[in-house]
């Protein structure tokens, strides 16, 4: 609250905000943790499956004692340890075409942290249909990308990438510090959007490589040919 252009009104806006995060792994878990710490009132988190040993190098809401048990329970437990006043809608499934509309309808904005393009494109379509902002964050190895999508005002995910790369797999090289870095930046995008201060990455994409600490802020534009959002004025 000591941030002058955030203030008490900004904190109140966070308390009244509802944010969907899919999934809460290396990126989404840290987004959730930062938003819980910042005082966001309601998090809807979708994440299926049980905790595996390979999760533990980056997914900081998963714990060793919860191996073999549902991830969503570990996520909920860890977040409530930090902030017991946080309302959590815990969804033990991943986002799909079947559930995405219903999930998105319950929140003010979305943070896309999914490891599969099918989930990312499903959230992109629902965000456009329901006119909800979506913070888009992704990483690979020591690289990361971040932008904030506001339907009709900024490029959507399909404007940026009309098709998914054919060889993308759910397994990718990762250090927790890389996924955590873009997660913290994404959480800050959410805080700025909700509280209405600062300059979110609208029409801009941050791309960086922690291998050589090169950072670029790139201009990105809507595409008239976009199959997802070109119909919006």
């Amino acid at each position, binding site marked *: 609250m000591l941030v002058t252009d955030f203030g008490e009104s900004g904190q109140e806006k966070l308390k009244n905000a509802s944010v969907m995060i899919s999934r809460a792994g*290396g990126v989404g878990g840290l987004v959730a943790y930062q938003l819980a710490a910042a005082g966001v009132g309601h998090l809807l988190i979708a994440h299926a499956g049980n905790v595996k040993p390979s999760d533990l190098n980056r997914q900081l809401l998963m714990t060793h004692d919860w191996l073999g048990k549902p991830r969503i329970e570990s996520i909920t437990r860890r977040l409530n340890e930090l902030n017991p006043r946080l309302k959590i809608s815990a969804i033990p499934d991943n986002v799909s075409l079947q559930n995405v509309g219903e999930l998105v309808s319950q929140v003010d904005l979305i943070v896309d942290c999914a490891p599969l393009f099918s989930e990312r494109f499903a959230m992109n379509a629902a965000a456009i249909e329901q006119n909800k902002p979506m913070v888009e964050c992704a990483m*690979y190895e020591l*690289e990361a990308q971040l932008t904030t999508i506001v339907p009709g005002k900024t490029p959507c995910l399909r404007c940026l*990438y009309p098709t*998914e790369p054919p060889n993308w797999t759910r397994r990718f*090289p990762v250090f927790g510090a890389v996924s955590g870095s873009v997660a913290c930046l994404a959480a800050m995008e959410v805080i700025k959007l909700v509280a209405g201060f600062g300059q979110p990455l609208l029409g801009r994409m941050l791309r960086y490589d922690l291998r050589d600490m090169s950072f670029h802020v*790139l*201009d990105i534009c809507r595409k008239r040919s976009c199959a997802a959002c070109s119909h919006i004025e």
Partner: protein
Amino acid sequence: MTVRIRIPANLRQFSGGQAVVETQSQNVGAAIESLVEQWPGLRDKILDSEGQIHSFLNVFVGHRDIRDLNGVATALASNDELLVVPALAGG
């Protein structure tokens, strides 16, 4: 003129591990062609069967997307940097 092409991490196995490749090129298309001639394994990773840049890759000159400029005809100046930015979904 010398330009630098920044190769994304997921394609560096095809550029001998190099993150940056230098070429002598007047425009983006020539720079890409020079790159894939130096590193043939990159050709089908960057270009489709018709020689177009894959839709899941964006190429920037400085901070501008070449698709918002003149595409592969976008002229280059000495010391320009091209960024190849792939679709990522790591979460």
